[in-house]
């Protein structure tokens, strides 16, 4: 018997026999149930038989179906095994994190503003400090069209909601509307419309559904596309606004950043602004969450970003800190779950919308101060325009595999993702997942900043301990940065 068993096991190891045969081998001489048998030895052969449909695949491209017994007692140490897998998944995630895709060069001055096409994913526009506007094709990574749009800076640009034309504002006090289609052969590049303003415009945004756009400069103006004078002007004791943005969900609402360190809210239908919040330092730009009507994030000179609920301006919902220099631009992902910020410290950071710390930092040796940033409309790419005349294309998810994934690949990535999430609190996994290499200067700057903050904290604590109890209140980080809310 044992010989037959050994033989059988040998076959098994080589994969010669399937199980039914093996069982036959084992049981052949064993089972004897005699009934109407007149042979000298009584035997009955019991064979396990299985339906071939259960294990034979239909085509050779199918995966082999392996019947499994999911009895937990048969598969012990599941947590340990999954932990190992999670650790490996985390390591792999870091190994494959190569976010930088391409650099689009062609501008002859720093890239000052960008705009994404509302309908086409591959089309992007950028305006530089020498008044040039370029239209890019991302899939080919080439410039399709160059327009000398303004004299001086191109301050702002936006694509009309239908994607047929776009607007630019510049230092030459003009608003120009351009056709998205390039002019025919032999025709000159001419704007569709030009509006001459009285003052310099610093920002521009278009309404989500109507032929209305807003500019900012000395005041915030609402323009009808068909008129040469603004249909409405908002002023509120400030003479300089740096950016204005329409709310993409509640389309009649606007917000702007002013030079008096304030963020002002407007309703297009009302004659007067709604409310403003004054902060300790100036906000550069802001961006509304495209999926959550009342949240917006502003990027501030004090190295932080602040997410506000527009209904409660007295303190921000979240303070996002990680940059080590002024934050210049911010853009939400189209899913509204994350946003990306560009900073003067030559880095790009990605923040989850509710997290105080960034989940990702992008930098390259050559990238200088990042002035403008955009998150692509398919939630996959990030574009950054920087001082050194380049536009860079990044992956929004650093280790994501691009292109079409096979179902098995998708399943595997999903599983890895899940594992990473499940074991994210474990020290080794957390260490690997959170580790990012920073340029030395940046790293030291962040350390320095930490020291400074610690010193401030200590000093405040000392002041508190040596003054009358209650006279120096404890202010949370959120409360610290808001000076007042003006109704």
């Amino acid at each position, binding site marked *: 018997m044992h010989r037959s068993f050994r033989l059988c096991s040998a076959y098994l190891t080589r994969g010669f026999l399937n199980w039914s045969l093996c069982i036959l081998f084992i049981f052949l001489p064993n089972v004897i149930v005699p009934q109407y048998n007149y042979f000298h030895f009584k035997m009955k052969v019991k064979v396990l038989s299985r339906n071939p449909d259960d294990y034979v695949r239909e085509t050779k491209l199918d995966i082999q179906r392996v019947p499994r017994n999911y009895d937990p007692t048969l598969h012990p140490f599941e947590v340990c*095994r999954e932990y190992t897998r999670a650790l490996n998944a985390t390591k792999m995630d870091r190994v494959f994190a190569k976010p930088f895709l391409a650099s689009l060069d062609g501008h002859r001055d720093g890239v000052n503003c960008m705009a994404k096409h509302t309908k086409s994913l591959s089309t992007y526009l950028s305006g530089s400090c020498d008044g040039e506007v370029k239209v890019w094709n991302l899939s080919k990574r080439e410039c399709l069209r160059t327009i000398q749009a303004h004299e001086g800076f191109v301050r702002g640009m936006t694509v009309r909601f239908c994607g047929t034309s776009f607007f630019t504002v510049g230092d030459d006090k003009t608003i120009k509307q351009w056709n998205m289609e390039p002019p025919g052969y032999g025709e000159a590049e001419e704007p569709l419309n030009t509006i001459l303003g009285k003052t310099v415009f610093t920002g521009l945004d278009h309404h989500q559904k109507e032929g209305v756009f807003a500019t900012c400069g000395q005041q915030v103006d609402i323009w009808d596309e068909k008129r040469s004078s603004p249909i409405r002007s908002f002023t509120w004791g400030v003479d300089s606004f740096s950016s204005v943005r329409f709310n993409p969900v509640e389309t009649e609402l606007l917000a702007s950043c002013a030079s008096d360190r304030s963020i002002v809210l407007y309703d297009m239908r009302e004659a007067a602004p709604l409310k403003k919040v004054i902060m300790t330092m100036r906000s550069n730009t802001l961006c509304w969450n495209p999926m*959550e009507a009342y949240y917006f994030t502003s990027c501030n000179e004090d190295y932080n970003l602040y997410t506000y609920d527009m209904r409660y301006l007295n303190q921000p919902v979240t303070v996002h800190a990680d940059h080590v220099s002024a934050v210049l631009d911010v853009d939400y992902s*189209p899913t509204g779950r994350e946003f990306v910020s560009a900073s003067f410290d030559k880095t790009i950071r990605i923040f989850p919308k509710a997290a105080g710390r960034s989940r990702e930092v992008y930098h390259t040796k050559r990238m200088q101060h990042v002035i403008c940033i955009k998150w692509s409309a398919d939630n996959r790419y990030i574009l950054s325009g920087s001082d050194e005349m380049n536009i860079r294309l990044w992956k929004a998810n650093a280790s994501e595999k691009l292109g079409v994934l096979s179902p098995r690949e998708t399943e595997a990535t999903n599983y890895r993702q899940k594992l990473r999430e499940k074991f994210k609190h474990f020290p080794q996994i957390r260490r690997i997942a959170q580790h990012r290499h920073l340029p030395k200067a940046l790293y030291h700057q962040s350390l320095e900043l930490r020291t400074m903050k610690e010193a401030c904290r200590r000093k405040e604590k000392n002041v508190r301990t040596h003054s009358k109890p209650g006279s120096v209140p404890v202010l949370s980080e959120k409360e610290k940065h808001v000076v007042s809310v003006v109704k």
Partner: protein
Amino acid sequence: MSKASTKKRTMKARKKRPTVPVENPDVSYDFEEDGFDKADDSIASDGEEDSDNERKRQKLVEAISSLGGARRKKITGERSEPALQKSEFTVNAEGEGVKIKLTDLMKSMDKISAVSAKAKKQLKKLHQSKKTVECPVTTQERERIQRDVAFQKVAKEVTQWQSVIQKNHKAEQLVFPLNQEPPGPKAVERVVMSWKAQTPLEQEIFSLLSANNQPTTDPILTPTEEASMKAMSLSEVKMRRAELQKARALQSYYEAKARRERKIKSKKYHRVLNKAKRKDFLKQFDEMVKKDPAGALEEMNKMEVARMQERMSLKHQNSGKWARSKAIMAKYDDGARKAMQQQLEVNKDLTQKLAVAVCSEDEEAEIPETLPDFVNEAPQGTDSNPWMKGKLSEDPAENGKEADDVAPQSTGIAPVTAAAAEEEEEEESDVEETEEESLLREFDSRRKMRQDSEPLQVGKEDSQMELNRNAPVLKESEDTSVPLLEGQTDQMETFEYMELLNQVESVQAETASVEPQPSSDRVPQKQKKGIELKDVLTKDANPLLVPLAPTAAATEDSDETLDQTGLIREAFAGDDVISDFVKEKKKQANADKPRVVDLTLPGWGEWGGSGLRPSLKKRRRFRVKTGPPPPRKDDRRPGVIISEKRNGSLSLHQLNSQPFPFTSPAQFESTLRAPVGRTWNTERTVKKLTKPEVLTRLGAVIEPMAREELTKDKDARAGDWSGEKIKINF
């Protein structure tokens, strides 16, 4: 009304008053003026009373009235009240100091019905109130209020999104873009629409096409069609689909049932069924007569018509093809005869007048004419040909009995008349209930028998019970021949089974005698032959409870296991595994026990040297004893050694503190416990567990949330409510 104008009025009135008695036709008074006149009377009365004035005035008035045209001019001059330049002559200084109060004016108001009561009330209130009007707010303040109001409005508007945002926040998975187009090919026209002719060649081709009236932009669907396609919302469609599904399922169920019933070949069953139906119908009809006489009448009419048709047709007469063939067969076959009789009965039933249950003589007489004589004769060859009855063999005793039963019938009812058949019918209807029951029982029992017969393991008691159960059937069916036969066959079958059973038993007995108790005896033998601790161990050990995997081979045969156990014993001959393990465990436990630390320093504070020991006091003081250690984790587990030492390499991977959102270690551990991988879970579960939080489509533009989401959300919430109410059980 300003002071000056009121004065002018009074003056004018005073001038006019005396004209009334004069009845100057030139002067006309309207109602209002008259009213003022009366009011002015009182004003005048308190100031001026002397007759001199009166006289002068009279004079003046007369003079004026004589003037005629001049006066008219004057009046027109007076009427232009708001003139900037006023002649000093027209101003009357009389009553200069008298102030006119609001009450004075109001008195006249009371009398005028044209002024609404509301206005009067308001005026009165105005008169009573002594408050001054507040100053208007400053521009800044006003703007602030405006802003605040506008902000409140906007905040309220924006708050509508809260439910959507919260829902998305809680959602397990979000799929973007939010409003995805239904998959499937788009209309060619729609694709073409976006394309425009640009190059000259294209334009030329386009112009050619349009010149020839080629359709280039005709939509495939008309607007109304599109509208109708969009009309049904998703929830509606779902509801409707569920309804349809249910209806379809019900239909298929009924169809299946009908098919099943149709497939039943048993004529008896159908007969019974028909009878039941008929009976049901009669019952209903009786009820109808009581409740709805009109309906009953209609039914009656229908029946009448059916009867007439039956009378006209030859449907159930014995003239059809089938009937003729049966008539031939009837000579030999009892069944055929029966069938014919039945058909005739049907005919009779149908042709019978309902109200009059009397069967006429001629009808009865007619039937035998159409029937051949041999139809009703008892079949002679039934007994001789058992195949015709579908039974295999008979017990001689039973056969005899049956023959006895059948014989009087066959002799007695040789010429069966229709009347007799009717009698039988009546009898049947009396016993109908019981017969049906018995039939059902019969079917039941037969099915059981069939089931039981397959494994051939029917106990003797069972068969006995079967017999007992069949007994009443036999009794019942004595009066009619066919049930009797059926019963007999049943009985025969049971007898056969009995025989078979006996055979099996005898065989089993044989086998038992050859191999006494093949399985039950062998098991203990085998167990004895397994590894025994006493044989293996050289020393006593704590009893270990190790679960033994039951092996099929071990219970099956002895010789092989003998070899196997022998082998194992041979292989591990020298090893005393278990005792070794126990020893090791003890050693481990001892090693982990805290030791007494001796901190005594010989020669410290007293003499030291060879042969000198520190004093007892010192020793007692400086020997540190720790308390008893906590019980070891493996104390209760004899088969395991659990090391309680902290492992350095492991601690790297262990958590030092409780992570943030969790409130207890147990809560945190619960999130880790269930594995996600496909090693431990089924495919479907794995897919469910590893679902990504956000799903985006490749190459799709994700638009910002549109207002439709809000309405959709509201609809969904409303739908949830209605959904609870409807709830389809299936």
